[in-house]
């Protein structure tokens, strides 16, 4: 048995736990608005709103009382203010589709806020926020918080096509600069978010990103290459959202330099961009703590 070798070059410290523990509440939907390919839901959830920090998410029970869907659906918090939590939902499968069909007056069972929030940037640092698809929604609350704390904020919103862009209006109002990209050029510049990221990165003291894994990897790599710390909010398949089931893990390098399969719900979803081993997601590298007990040995 060879001891896994620590990796010690990280620019980021692991995101700290949230200030407040989550609560579980049955809350009323007070707004439901289709926005292009998505539905924005507004929930009257004061106890969640007052605890929520940017980067955190909520988990919904789906399907109502007769539901055969047992597992909660995790959705990032877009904004939380005045007792109202706003989320943006994309109808992917049966559970998220059910969520998009909620109407004002309906009630939903929700647990939150969950996960670790984005850590604050170094004082005075310019921040770059990068959102892919509905991932941009998760950055709206963060942008507001950063502006309020006096940071300069540049933002990039990207998507496959114009109708899958998200929160562009909110980010336009909040950010000092906003770049929009789409893969097909149907809105903003044609291309991937990295096009804009590469231009905006220099001079930034921190990068925050939320979106598909491939995008997170590209953004984190670009930031790390320039020596800029980055924080990414990952999206792994979750069964519980609260840290008890161990389904949502991915290989993350800890502060001791060792890689562990870390729960994205409670140790994330926000991780240092240089700590997530993106290429190894869905595999079991030999140098993960405890891989030896699974019969995986150094090649």
């Amino acid at each position, binding site marked *: 048995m060879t001891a896994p070798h620590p990796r010690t070059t990280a620019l980021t410290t692991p995101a700290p736990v949230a200030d407040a523990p989550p609560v579980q509440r049955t809350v009323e939907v007070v707004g439901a608005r289709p926005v292009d390919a998505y539905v924005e839901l507004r929930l009257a959830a004061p106890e969640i709103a007052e605890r929520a920090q940017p980067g955190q998410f909520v988990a919904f029970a789906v399907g109502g009382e007769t539901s055969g869907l047992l597992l909660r659906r995790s959705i990032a918090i877009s904004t939380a203010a005045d007792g109202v939590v706003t989320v943006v939902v994309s109808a992917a499968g049966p559970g998220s589709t059910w969520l998009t069909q909620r109407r004002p007056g309906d009630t939903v069972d929700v647990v939150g806020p969950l996960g670790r929030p984005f850590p604050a940037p170094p004082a005075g640092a310019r921040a770059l926020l990068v959102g892919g698809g509905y991932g941009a929604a998760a950055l709206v609350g963060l942008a507001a918080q950063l502006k309020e704390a006096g940071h300069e904020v540049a933002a990039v919103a990207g998507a496959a096509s114009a109708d899958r862009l998200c929160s562009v209006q909110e980010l336009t109002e909040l950010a000092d600069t906003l770049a929009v990209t789409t893969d097909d050029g149907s809105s903003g510049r044609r291309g991937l978010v990295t096009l804009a990221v590469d231009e905006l990165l220099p001079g930034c003291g921190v990068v925050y990103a939320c979106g598909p894994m491939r995008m997170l990897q590209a953004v984190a790599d670009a930031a790390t290459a320039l020596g800029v710390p980055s924080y990414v909010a990952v999206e792994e398949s979750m069964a*519980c959202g609260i840290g008890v089931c161990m389904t949502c893990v991915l290989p993350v390098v800890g502060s001791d330099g060792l890689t562990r399969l870390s729960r994205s719900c409670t140790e994330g979803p926000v991780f240092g961009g240089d700590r997530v081993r993106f290429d190894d997601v869905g595999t079991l590298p030999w140098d993960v703590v405890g891989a030896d007990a699974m019969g995986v040995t150094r090649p």
Partner: protein
Amino acid sequence: MTAVETAVDMSTALGAVPIPSPVLTASGCSAFGRELEPFVDLTAIGAVVTKSVQLRPRSGRPTPRMAETPSGMLNSIGLQGPGIDGLLDGELPWLAERGARAFVSIAGVRVEDFAELATRLRGVPGVAGLEVNISCPNVESRGEVFACDPVAASDVVAAVRAAADPAQPIYAKLSPDVTDIVSVARAVVDAGADGLSMINTLLGLVIDPDTMKPLLGGITGGLSGPAIRPVALRCVWQVHAALPEVPILGMGGIRSGLDALQFVLAGASAVSVGTAVFNDPSALGRIHAELAAALETRGFASLREAVGYAHR
């Protein structure tokens, strides 16, 4: 949990160890209890049944580790955990400090592993007993699961009973994936098990319609949740009918107090709530309250009176 106070005496026992509530977590479905603290009073539930621990730290399997299925789920976690050292250093003291009882689930790939784990857990504060996971279908060496063979199963149980603290009851956790669960139950009881936990998950498979390959990294996985409840109840019923004196920790798809009641009536003197916690992190306290109310409505003065009532 503190809310509804009924007149029903809800106390019960794991072997000879008294516990104030018949509602426990299920191994692997509440980690080591910590994350439930915002939702459940850990001292008021029967016990925290910990995620099965092995000798060494384990990374568990690569993802995907779960697939949702109709009224259930399939998992192939692969027993990710800190190993016995991590448990003794971190998790058990944390539970003991709070006054929460731990029912420690142990797992291994050899009889000696189990015995060594039991030895390490002797006299550890807060440990109410051991659940012997001989039935987990998820460990890498899946040639034959201990629980599928009465002889292998009783070898493990005998070794654990010999090594374990005499004050700690040991419960053998049975698999439903056998032709005759009563014969396995009888064998492990003869080998010294103080009680039986049942059931573990059923072996299942889901194929991803996109990749057209098995969805889980481990190909097969364990099926849990309300979908399997009728199978679990049948197992509890059959074993209680055959071995009415043996305490049973019943589990499999319990989601409400009336579900728990069915297990109690079938013969369980306590129940574990697993997958339902993913749906409702407050489930344990709610189920305790609902069960107490249901017993009261039906005229029972105590939980104990209701155990096995459906057989009478």
